[in-house]
């Protein structure tokens, strides 16, 4: 860009004078005869004008480009929010839950109401999660508990659940429903396909100055059917990209099989926030 501006500034005035002389029939003094004061003034003014107009054009182009980029970023963000929403409102889960609810209404209205409350809390959190950046870990555990309670109505005694959240970690901020895809994978690909079902354990701990969130199950594991590359790919990819956007390389997600045991282990590690940004768990209680 810069060489073009210089070239235009150098050639512009000379060409302009030549063109003007040709039209008017006058003869202006050459710009290059530096002893003529008038020439120097003309040269300075036209140089300035050239630089200003070229610069204005360049700025305009930059601005248009930046606007297009911002527009593309907005679109990408909207798209990823939509994808997040779609993945969390998995139709099979939703319709099966509603089918169960329909039955419960006839059998046990009180239980049906409790199930509906869980579903409402889960749907509300899902819709909000695509907007809020962070919420307290206690709220994250509550929303996952809602989802698990819904799954327990569906799976009956086949699904056992343990949640372990130490009191001192309750207020730590985490991205909303970041654990959801991992819990869903554990159930969908680990426990649901297993005839006898199994246990899902969700826990949080501090380790080496980082927050370590763990989802483990004793289901059929990753190797069974070799279905990892297809079925769990999308949820995991989404968790990874969210973590990357928020924390760069400071956060990580690892998925592994438990050596010598059945099942799958998913671990998210997050950097701890600076002390003043800690949220109060009471602010998001349902």
């Amino acid at each position, binding site marked *: 860009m810069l060489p073009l501006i210089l070239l235009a500034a150098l050639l512009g005035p000379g060409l302009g004078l030549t063109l003007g002389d040709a039209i008017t029939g006058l003869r202006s003094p050459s710009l290059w005869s530096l002893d003529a004061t008038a020439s120097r003034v003309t040269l300075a003014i036209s140089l300035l004008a050239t630089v200003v107009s070229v610069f204005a054009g360049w700025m305009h182009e930059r601005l248009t480009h930046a606007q297009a980029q911002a527009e593309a970023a907005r679109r990408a963000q909207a798209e990823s929010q939509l994808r997040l929403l779609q993945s969390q409102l998995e139709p*099979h889960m939703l*319709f099966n839950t509603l089918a*169960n609810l329909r*039955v419960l209404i*006839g*059998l046990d209205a009180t239980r049906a109401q409790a199930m509906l409350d869980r579903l409402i809390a889960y749907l509300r959190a899902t819709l909000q999660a695509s907007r809020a950046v962070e919420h307290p870990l206690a709220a994250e555990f509550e929303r996952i508990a809602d989802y698990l309670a819904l799954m327990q109505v*569906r799976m009956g005694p086949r699904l056992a659940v343990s949640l372990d959240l130490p009191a001192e970690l309750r207020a730590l901020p985490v991205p909303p429903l970041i654990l959801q895809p991992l819990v869903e994978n554990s159930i969908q690909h680990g426990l*649901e396909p297993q*005839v006898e079902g199994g246990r899902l354990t969700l826990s949080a701990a501090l380790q080496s100055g980082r927050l370590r969130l763990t989802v483990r199950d004793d289901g059929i594991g990753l190797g069974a059917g070799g*279905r990892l590359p297809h079925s769990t790919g999308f949820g995991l990819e989404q968790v990874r990209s969210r973590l990357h956007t928020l924390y760069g390389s400071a956060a990580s997600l690892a998925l592994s099989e438990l050596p010598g045991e059945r099942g799958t282990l998913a671990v998210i590690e997050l950097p701890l926030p600076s002390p003043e940004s800690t949220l109060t768990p009471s602010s998001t209680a349902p």
Partner: protein
Amino acid sequence: MTSTRALIAEDEPLLAAALAADLDALWPGLQLVASVGDGLSAIERALALKPDVCFLDIRMPGCSGLEVAQALAEDWPADAPFPLLVFVTAYDQFALQAFEAQAVDYVVKPPERARLQACVARLQARLAERGAGSGLQGTLDQLRALLSGPLPAGSGALAQQSAPGAPPPRLNVIQAQVGSTVHFVPVDEVIYFEAADKYLRVVTAHKEHLIRLSLKDLLPQLDGTRFWQIHRGTVVQARCIASARRDDSGKVFIQLHGRPETLTASRLYAHLFKGM
């Protein structure tokens, strides 16, 4: 008239109970002989009790409703009438499309009374017109169409509704681990693959290996013109087949080049062995 006997295979206990209650109200003569929560029990109980109607959930632990149907079609004794099958599903777009195209009975969870009523009426009409042994041929045709259509047989595959269409790469060599050694077996040397519980037997002329892979996941990686599925648990390399002999029940017995044992092709795949 003897009462009609039904089996329900549904892994969600509430939904199973509700379907049983709805059927009880809509079909007074129906006797529920078994209600099971997984695919393997469904196969076992259905073969033992020989119900007239089976309601099969598509997504179940163990194996899917479609796999149950396949197993029943393969192993059903020739002297009993094949049961009428109704698939039940909450939300499986591909499944619904396939069923509509193939006109297999299906209902969507939760079944509305009117829809279930229509299903019951259709089942009653089909039961009234069928004689012993009939029904199986129609079911075989439908299952063949379903299994070869856009709908993969496994429940896992059903779950991946938006799986991209790119086929997995062809397998050239089987890597079979024994202890700390991995044996490399060229796919071309494999005479047949046979499912054995959670493993797959890989049989060559002189050796056999066990690998931890399901037949369902292996199949897309094989060249279908060279490797033929002949049973839900068996895939054989076509050039290794010496001869095929059909018996009265519709099964086909296969002699191999290079192996002494006889393989059995099920009714579902018997049509592959016609003379030219």
